[in-house]
Protein backbone atom coordinates (compact mmCIF):
# COMPACT_ATOMS: atom_id res chain seq x y z
CA UNK A 1 0.00 0.00 0.00
CA UNK A 2 2.69 2.47 1.01
CA UNK A 3 4.56 1.91 -2.22
CA UNK A 4 1.68 1.39 -4.61
CA UNK A 5 -1.42 3.24 -3.45
CA UNK A 6 -0.44 6.21 -1.27
CA UNK A 7 1.61 7.97 -4.01
CA UNK A 8 -1.34 7.73 -6.44
CA UNK A 9 -2.27 11.12 -7.91
CA UNK A 10 -5.91 10.53 -6.98
CA UNK A 11 -4.96 10.82 -3.29
CA UNK A 12 -2.91 14.02 -3.71
CA UNK A 13 -5.86 16.24 -2.81
CA UNK A 14 -6.12 14.48 0.56
CA UNK A 15 -2.43 14.93 1.40
CA UNK A 16 -2.89 18.10 3.44
CA UNK A 17 -6.21 17.06 4.96
CA UNK A 18 -4.79 14.36 7.22
CA UNK A 19 -1.64 13.57 9.17
CA UNK A 20 -0.35 10.30 7.74
CA UNK A 21 1.15 7.61 9.95
CA UNK A 22 2.59 4.27 8.90
CA UNK A 23 2.75 1.60 11.62
CA UNK A 24 4.77 -1.57 11.18
CA UNK A 25 2.89 -3.80 13.62
CA UNK A 26 5.99 -6.00 14.09
CA UNK A 27 8.12 -3.09 15.30
CA UNK A 28 8.47 -2.98 19.11
CA UNK A 29 8.31 0.84 18.92
CA UNK A 30 4.65 0.50 18.03
CA UNK A 31 3.58 -1.57 21.06
CA UNK A 32 1.92 1.47 22.66
CA UNK A 33 -0.13 2.17 19.55
CA UNK A 34 -1.19 -1.48 19.35
CA UNK A 35 -2.19 -1.54 23.02
CA UNK A 36 -4.74 1.19 22.25
CA UNK A 37 -5.66 0.10 18.72
CA UNK A 38 -5.24 -3.69 18.39
CA UNK A 39 -4.72 -4.91 14.84
CA UNK A 40 -5.42 -8.45 13.63
CA UNK A 41 -5.87 -7.89 9.89
CA UNK A 42 -3.22 -6.55 7.53
CA UNK A 43 -3.34 -3.95 6.30
CA UNK A 44 -5.75 -2.13 8.58
CA UNK A 45 -6.52 1.52 7.92
CA UNK A 46 -7.74 3.76 10.68
CA UNK A 47 -8.84 7.35 10.77
CA UNK A 48 -8.56 8.85 14.25
CA UNK A 49 -10.15 12.08 15.49
CA UNK A 50 -7.55 14.80 16.06
CA UNK A 51 -8.40 15.75 19.65
CA UNK A 52 -9.22 12.53 21.48
CA UNK A 53 -7.83 9.89 19.09
CA UNK A 54 -11.21 8.12 18.89
CA UNK A 55 -11.47 5.93 15.80
CA UNK A 56 -13.77 7.38 13.18
CA UNK A 57 -13.22 4.70 10.55
CA UNK A 58 -11.59 1.29 10.43
CA UNK A 59 -10.99 -0.56 7.18
CA UNK A 60 -9.71 -4.12 7.07
CA UNK A 61 -7.69 -5.22 4.06
CA UNK A 62 -6.33 -3.48 1.01
CA UNK A 63 -8.04 -0.75 -0.99
CA UNK A 64 -7.46 0.76 -4.41
CA UNK A 65 -6.60 4.45 -4.60
CA UNK A 66 -10.17 5.21 -5.65
CA UNK A 67 -11.61 3.21 -2.73
CA UNK A 68 -9.21 4.80 -0.28
CA UNK A 69 -10.11 8.26 -1.58
CA UNK A 70 -13.77 7.51 -0.96
CA UNK A 71 -13.02 6.26 2.56
CA UNK A 72 -11.06 9.42 3.35
CA UNK A 73 -13.92 11.55 2.05
CA UNK A 74 -16.34 9.62 4.28
CA UNK A 75 -14.10 10.11 7.30
CA UNK A 76 -13.85 13.85 6.68
CA UNK A 77 -17.60 14.16 6.39
CA UNK A 78 -18.02 12.16 9.56
CA UNK A 79 -15.72 14.54 11.47
CA UNK A 80 -17.29 17.69 10.02
CA UNK A 81 -20.86 16.94 8.98
CA UNK A 82 -22.33 19.53 6.63
CA UNK A 83 -25.76 21.02 7.35
CA UNK A 84 -28.42 19.39 5.27
CA UNK A 85 -26.35 16.27 4.71
CA UNK A 86 -28.37 13.32 3.54
CA UNK A 87 -29.64 11.04 6.25
CA UNK A 88 -27.97 8.02 4.64
CA UNK A 89 -24.53 9.67 4.89
CA UNK A 90 -25.11 10.49 8.55
CA UNK A 91 -26.16 6.89 9.24
CA UNK A 92 -23.08 5.61 7.40
CA UNK A 93 -20.80 7.86 9.46
CA UNK A 94 -22.40 6.64 12.68
CA UNK A 95 -22.02 3.00 11.60
CA UNK A 96 -18.38 3.66 10.69
CA UNK A 97 -17.69 5.03 14.18
CA UNK A 98 -19.36 2.08 15.89
CA UNK A 99 -17.51 -0.38 13.67
CA UNK A 100 -14.17 1.38 14.19
CA UNK A 101 -14.74 1.33 17.94
CA UNK A 102 -15.34 -2.45 17.95
CA UNK A 103 -19.13 -2.20 18.43
CA UNK A 104 -19.67 -4.52 15.50
CA UNK A 105 -23.39 -5.27 15.98
CA UNK A 106 -24.18 -1.58 16.18
CA UNK A 107 -22.06 -1.03 13.07
CA UNK A 108 -23.81 -3.83 11.17
CA UNK A 109 -27.26 -2.50 12.06
CA UNK A 110 -26.12 0.99 11.08
CA UNK A 111 -24.79 -0.07 7.70
CA UNK A 112 -28.03 -1.92 6.95
CA UNK A 113 -30.07 1.12 7.89
CA UNK A 114 -27.84 3.41 5.80
CA UNK A 115 -28.21 1.13 2.77
CA UNK A 116 -31.97 1.04 3.20
CA UNK A 117 -32.11 4.81 3.48
CA UNK A 118 -29.66 5.42 0.62
CA UNK A 119 -31.44 3.22 -1.89
CA UNK A 120 -30.02 1.40 -4.89
CA UNK A 121 -28.74 4.54 -6.64
CA UNK A 122 -26.93 5.95 -3.59
CA UNK A 123 -23.41 7.09 -4.58
CA UNK A 124 -21.89 5.57 -1.42
CA UNK A 125 -23.74 2.25 -1.80
CA UNK A 126 -20.76 0.15 -2.92
CA UNK A 127 -18.61 1.49 -0.09
CA UNK A 128 -21.37 0.88 2.48
CA UNK A 129 -21.88 -2.67 1.16
CA UNK A 130 -18.15 -3.40 1.51
CA UNK A 131 -18.18 -2.08 5.07
CA UNK A 132 -21.24 -4.17 5.94
CA UNK A 133 -19.77 -7.38 4.50
CA UNK A 134 -16.43 -6.75 6.24
CA UNK A 135 -18.20 -6.13 9.55
CA UNK A 136 -20.26 -9.32 9.18
CA UNK A 137 -17.07 -11.30 8.53
CA UNK A 138 -15.33 -9.68 11.49
CA UNK A 139 -18.32 -10.54 13.71
CA UNK A 140 -18.16 -14.18 12.59
CA UNK A 141 -21.57 -13.95 10.89
CA UNK A 142 -20.34 -15.90 7.92
CA UNK A 143 -23.66 -16.96 6.43
CA UNK A 144 -24.91 -13.37 6.51
CA UNK A 145 -21.57 -12.27 5.04
CA UNK A 146 -21.93 -14.71 2.13
CA UNK A 147 -25.62 -14.07 1.44
CA UNK A 148 -25.31 -10.29 1.77
CA UNK A 149 -22.30 -10.27 -0.54
CA UNK A 150 -24.15 -12.27 -3.15
CA UNK A 151 -27.36 -10.24 -2.98
CA UNK A 152 -25.63 -6.86 -3.02
CA UNK A 153 -22.99 -7.77 -5.62
CA UNK A 154 -25.71 -8.45 -8.17
CA UNK A 155 -26.65 -4.76 -8.00
CA UNK A 156 -23.12 -3.31 -8.13
CA UNK A 157 -21.26 -2.14 -11.22
CA UNK A 158 -18.52 -4.53 -12.34
CA UNK A 159 -15.59 -2.70 -10.75
CA UNK A 160 -13.16 -3.07 -7.86
CA UNK A 161 -15.89 -2.81 -5.21
CA UNK A 162 -17.89 -5.59 -6.87
CA UNK A 163 -14.74 -7.76 -6.84
CA UNK A 164 -14.02 -6.94 -3.19
CA UNK A 165 -17.57 -7.77 -2.08
CA UNK A 166 -17.66 -11.05 -4.02
CA UNK A 167 -14.19 -12.02 -2.75
CA UNK A 168 -15.20 -11.38 0.85
CA UNK A 169 -18.41 -13.34 0.44
CA UNK A 170 -16.66 -16.32 -1.11
CA UNK A 171 -14.01 -16.29 1.63
CA UNK A 172 -16.79 -16.33 4.26
CA UNK A 173 -18.36 -19.37 2.55
CA UNK A 174 -14.99 -21.13 2.24
CA UNK A 175 -14.29 -20.63 5.94
CA UNK A 176 -16.98 -23.03 7.21
CA UNK A 177 -16.53 -26.53 5.74
CA UNK A 178 -19.41 -28.13 7.64
CA UNK A 179 -22.09 -25.46 7.39
CA UNK A 180 -25.33 -26.67 5.78
CA UNK A 181 -25.70 -23.38 3.85
CA UNK A 182 -22.20 -23.53 2.37
CA UNK A 183 -22.92 -25.48 -0.84
CA UNK A 184 -25.71 -23.09 -1.81
CA UNK A 185 -23.54 -20.05 -1.04
CA UNK A 186 -20.61 -21.41 -3.06
CA UNK A 187 -22.86 -22.17 -6.03
CA UNK A 188 -24.22 -18.63 -5.94
CA UNK A 189 -20.93 -16.82 -5.39
CA UNK A 190 -18.53 -18.78 -7.56
CA UNK A 191 -19.85 -17.52 -10.94
CA UNK A 192 -19.66 -13.96 -9.64
CA UNK A 193 -16.09 -14.54 -8.44
CA UNK A 194 -15.14 -15.88 -11.88
CA UNK A 195 -16.50 -12.65 -13.31
CA UNK A 196 -14.72 -10.59 -10.63
CA UNK A 197 -11.31 -12.10 -11.28
CA UNK A 198 -11.42 -10.58 -14.77
CA UNK A 199 -12.42 -7.08 -13.68
CA UNK A 200 -9.88 -4.44 -14.68
CA UNK A 201 -8.26 -2.09 -12.18
CA UNK A 202 -7.91 -4.54 -9.29
CA UNK A 203 -4.85 -4.60 -7.07
CA UNK A 204 -2.76 -7.66 -7.97
CA UNK A 205 -3.04 -8.77 -4.35
CA UNK A 206 -6.84 -8.69 -4.50
CA UNK A 207 -6.93 -10.56 -7.82
CA UNK A 208 -4.63 -13.21 -6.38
CA UNK A 209 -6.91 -13.49 -3.34
CA UNK A 210 -9.89 -14.08 -5.62
CA UNK A 211 -8.05 -16.87 -7.44
CA UNK A 212 -7.21 -18.52 -4.12
CA UNK A 213 -10.85 -18.34 -3.00
CA UNK A 214 -11.94 -19.84 -6.35
CA UNK A 215 -9.48 -22.75 -6.00
CA UNK A 216 -10.76 -23.42 -2.48
CA UNK A 217 -14.36 -23.27 -3.67
CA UNK A 218 -13.73 -25.77 -6.49
CA UNK A 219 -11.97 -28.12 -4.07
CA UNK A 220 -14.80 -27.74 -1.56
CA UNK A 221 -17.28 -28.80 -4.24
CA UNK A 222 -15.22 -31.93 -4.89
CA UNK A 223 -14.01 -30.79 -8.31
CA UNK A 224 -10.27 -31.48 -8.04
CA UNK A 225 -9.71 -31.08 -11.78
CA UNK A 226 -11.51 -27.73 -11.75
CA UNK A 227 -9.43 -26.67 -8.75
CA UNK A 228 -6.25 -27.59 -10.63
CA UNK A 229 -7.30 -25.69 -13.73
CA UNK A 230 -8.12 -22.63 -11.66
CA UNK A 231 -4.78 -22.91 -9.86
CA UNK A 232 -3.06 -22.98 -13.27
CA UNK A 233 -4.85 -19.76 -14.22
CA UNK A 234 -3.80 -18.31 -10.85
CA UNK A 235 -0.20 -19.30 -11.51
CA UNK A 236 -0.27 -17.84 -15.05
CA UNK A 237 -1.55 -14.56 -13.66
CA UNK A 238 1.26 -14.50 -11.07
CA UNK A 239 3.85 -15.21 -13.75
CA UNK A 240 2.51 -12.36 -15.89
CA UNK A 241 2.77 -10.07 -12.87
CA UNK A 242 6.34 -11.23 -12.29
CA UNK A 243 7.21 -10.18 -15.83
CA UNK A 244 5.94 -6.63 -15.37
CA UNK A 245 8.37 -3.82 -14.65
CA UNK A 246 8.06 -3.24 -10.91
CA UNK A 247 10.17 -2.68 -7.83
CA UNK A 248 11.66 -5.72 -6.10
CA UNK A 249 9.31 -5.07 -3.15
CA UNK A 250 6.27 -5.03 -5.43
CA UNK A 251 7.33 -8.28 -7.10
CA UNK A 252 8.05 -9.96 -3.76
CA UNK A 253 4.69 -8.83 -2.37
CA UNK A 254 3.06 -11.57 -4.46
CA UNK A 255 5.46 -14.31 -3.31
CA UNK A 256 3.11 -15.73 -0.69
CA UNK A 257 0.49 -16.17 -3.42
CA UNK A 258 3.12 -17.88 -5.62
CA UNK A 259 3.76 -20.36 -2.82
CA UNK A 260 0.02 -20.89 -2.35
CA UNK A 261 -0.58 -21.48 -6.05
CA UNK A 262 2.40 -23.83 -6.38
CA UNK A 263 1.22 -25.84 -3.36
CA UNK A 264 -2.33 -25.96 -4.76
CA UNK A 265 -0.87 -27.37 -7.99
CA UNK A 266 1.04 -30.03 -6.07
CA UNK A 267 4.23 -28.59 -7.51
CA UNK A 268 5.88 -26.50 -4.77
CA UNK A 269 9.20 -26.30 -6.68
CA UNK A 270 7.59 -23.90 -9.16
CA UNK A 271 7.79 -21.14 -6.57
CA UNK A 272 11.52 -21.49 -5.92
CA UNK A 273 12.92 -19.32 -8.77
CA UNK A 274 10.79 -16.34 -7.73
CA UNK A 275 11.70 -16.80 -4.07
CA UNK A 276 15.39 -17.07 -4.89
CA UNK A 277 15.15 -13.86 -6.94
CA UNK A 278 13.40 -12.08 -4.06
CA UNK A 279 16.10 -13.23 -1.65
CA UNK A 280 18.78 -11.84 -3.97
CA UNK A 281 16.92 -8.56 -4.50
CA UNK A 282 15.93 -8.03 -0.86
CA UNK A 283 18.82 -9.42 1.21
CA UNK A 284 17.55 -7.95 4.50
CA UNK A 285 14.01 -9.34 4.19
CA UNK A 286 13.31 -12.53 6.16
CA UNK A 287 10.29 -13.48 4.07
CA UNK A 288 12.04 -14.93 1.00
CA UNK A 289 14.22 -17.37 2.98
CA UNK A 290 11.28 -18.25 5.26
CA UNK A 291 9.14 -19.05 2.21
CA UNK A 292 11.98 -21.01 0.65
CA UNK A 293 12.32 -23.00 3.87
CA UNK A 294 8.63 -23.85 3.76
CA UNK A 295 8.72 -24.91 0.11
CA UNK A 296 11.93 -26.92 0.54
CA UNK A 297 10.42 -28.68 3.55
CA UNK A 298 7.38 -29.61 1.44
CA UNK A 299 9.78 -31.00 -1.17
CA UNK A 300 11.58 -33.05 1.48
CA UNK A 301 14.84 -31.18 0.84
CA UNK A 302 15.41 -30.89 4.57
CA UNK A 303 19.07 -29.75 4.85
CA UNK A 304 18.39 -26.90 2.39
CA UNK A 305 15.14 -26.11 4.19
CA UNK A 306 16.95 -25.92 7.51
CA UNK A 307 19.64 -23.63 6.12
CA UNK A 308 16.96 -21.32 4.67
CA UNK A 309 15.08 -21.28 8.00
CA UNK A 310 18.28 -20.30 9.78
CA UNK A 311 18.79 -17.46 7.30
CA UNK A 312 15.23 -16.30 7.94
CA UNK A 313 15.63 -16.47 11.73
CA UNK A 314 18.74 -14.30 11.56
CA UNK A 315 16.70 -11.53 9.88
CA UNK A 316 13.22 -11.93 11.41
CA UNK A 317 11.88 -9.66 14.13
CA UNK A 318 8.68 -9.08 16.04
CA UNK A 319 5.73 -11.41 16.58
CA UNK A 320 6.12 -13.10 13.22
CA UNK A 321 9.51 -14.42 14.22
CA UNK A 322 7.66 -16.98 16.35
CA UNK A 323 6.18 -18.47 13.18
CA UNK A 324 9.67 -18.73 11.70
CA UNK A 325 10.81 -20.53 14.87
CA UNK A 326 7.89 -22.93 14.41
CA UNK A 327 8.91 -23.55 10.83
CA UNK A 328 12.55 -24.19 11.81
CA UNK A 329 11.39 -26.55 14.58
CA UNK A 330 9.17 -28.49 12.18
CA UNK A 331 12.13 -29.06 9.85
CA UNK A 332 14.37 -30.18 12.70
CA UNK A 333 11.62 -32.53 13.87
CA UNK A 334 11.36 -34.07 10.40
CA UNK A 335 15.12 -34.51 10.47
CA UNK A 336 14.83 -36.27 13.83
CA UNK A 337 17.27 -33.82 15.38
CA UNK A 338 15.81 -33.69 18.88
CA UNK A 339 18.58 -31.66 20.57
CA UNK A 340 18.31 -28.95 17.89
CA UNK A 341 14.50 -29.03 18.09
CA UNK A 342 14.54 -28.62 21.89
CA UNK A 343 17.03 -25.74 21.64
CA UNK A 344 14.97 -23.95 18.96
CA UNK A 345 11.78 -24.25 21.01
CA UNK A 346 13.54 -22.97 24.13
CA UNK A 347 14.93 -19.99 22.22
CA UNK A 348 11.50 -19.30 20.70
CA UNK A 349 9.79 -19.33 24.11
CA UNK A 350 12.38 -16.95 25.49
CA UNK A 351 11.86 -14.68 22.49
CA UNK A 352 8.08 -14.80 22.96
CA UNK A 353 8.43 -13.89 26.63
CA UNK A 354 10.46 -10.84 25.66
CA UNK A 355 7.88 -9.46 23.22
CA UNK A 356 5.74 -6.53 24.36
CA UNK A 357 2.32 -7.83 25.46
CA UNK A 358 0.31 -6.18 22.63
CA UNK A 359 2.60 -7.86 20.10
CA UNK A 360 2.74 -11.30 21.69
CA UNK A 361 0.63 -13.89 19.87
CA UNK A 362 -0.45 -15.96 22.88
CA UNK A 363 -1.80 -18.73 20.67
CA UNK A 364 1.56 -19.26 18.99
CA UNK A 365 3.45 -18.82 22.29
CA UNK A 366 1.21 -21.47 23.94
CA UNK A 367 1.74 -23.85 21.03
CA UNK A 368 5.51 -23.44 21.38
CA UNK A 369 5.34 -24.11 25.14
CA UNK A 370 3.14 -27.18 24.60
CA UNK A 371 5.50 -28.53 21.95
CA UNK A 372 8.52 -27.94 24.17
CA UNK A 373 6.77 -29.70 27.06
CA UNK A 374 5.90 -32.67 24.84
CA UNK A 375 9.50 -32.99 23.65
CA UNK A 376 10.82 -32.91 27.20
CA UNK A 377 8.27 -35.49 28.27
CA UNK A 378 9.32 -37.97 25.59
Amino acid at each position, binding site marked *: *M*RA*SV*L*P*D*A*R*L*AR*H*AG*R*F*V*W*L*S*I*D*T*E*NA*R*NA*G*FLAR*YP*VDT*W*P*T*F*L*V*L*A*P*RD*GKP*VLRWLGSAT*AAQLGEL*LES*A*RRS*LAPRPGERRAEALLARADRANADGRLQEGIAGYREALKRGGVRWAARARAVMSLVLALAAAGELEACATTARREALQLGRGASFASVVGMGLSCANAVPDAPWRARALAALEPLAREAVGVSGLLADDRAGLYEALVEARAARGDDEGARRTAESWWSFLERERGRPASAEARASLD*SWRVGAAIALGDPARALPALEASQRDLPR*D*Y*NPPARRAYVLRELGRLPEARAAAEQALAKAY*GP*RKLKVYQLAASIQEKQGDRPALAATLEEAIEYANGLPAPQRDEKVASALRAKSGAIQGQ
Partner: protein
Amino acid sequence: MAAGTGPRVIEDDWPRAVAEAQAKDLPLFVDAWAPW
Protein backbone atom coordinates in the same frame (compact mmCIF):
# COMPACT_ATOMS: atom_id res chain seq x y z
CA MET B 1 -1.28 3.95 -11.86
CA ALA B 2 -0.80 7.68 -11.99
CA ALA B 3 1.98 8.78 -9.65
CA GLY B 4 1.41 12.09 -7.92
CA THR B 5 2.53 14.12 -4.96
CA GLY B 6 1.82 11.61 -2.24
CA PRO B 7 1.29 12.48 1.39
CA ARG B 8 4.26 12.94 3.72
CA VAL B 9 4.10 9.82 5.86
CA ILE B 10 5.41 9.62 9.44
CA GLU B 11 6.99 6.20 9.96
CA ASP B 12 6.53 4.33 13.26
CA ASP B 13 6.22 7.41 15.46
CA TRP B 14 2.73 7.54 16.94
CA PRO B 15 3.47 10.25 19.55
CA ARG B 16 4.86 12.57 16.87
CA ALA B 17 1.88 11.93 14.60
CA VAL B 18 -0.57 12.63 17.44
CA ALA B 19 1.22 15.86 18.33
CA GLU B 20 1.12 16.97 14.70
CA ALA B 21 -2.56 16.01 14.33
CA GLN B 22 -3.46 18.00 17.45
CA ALA B 23 -1.36 20.99 16.47
CA LYS B 24 -2.91 21.15 13.01
CA ASP B 25 -6.35 19.94 14.13
CA LEU B 26 -6.27 17.29 11.42
CA PRO B 27 -7.47 13.70 11.60
CA LEU B 28 -4.80 11.02 11.71
CA PHE B 29 -4.79 8.42 8.95
CA VAL B 30 -3.01 5.22 9.99
CA ASP B 31 -1.78 2.48 7.67
CA ALA B 32 -1.06 -0.49 9.97
CA TRP B 33 0.91 -3.04 7.99
CA ALA B 34 3.30 -5.92 8.51
CA PRO B 35 6.33 -6.97 6.51
CA TRP B 36 5.03 -10.21 5.03
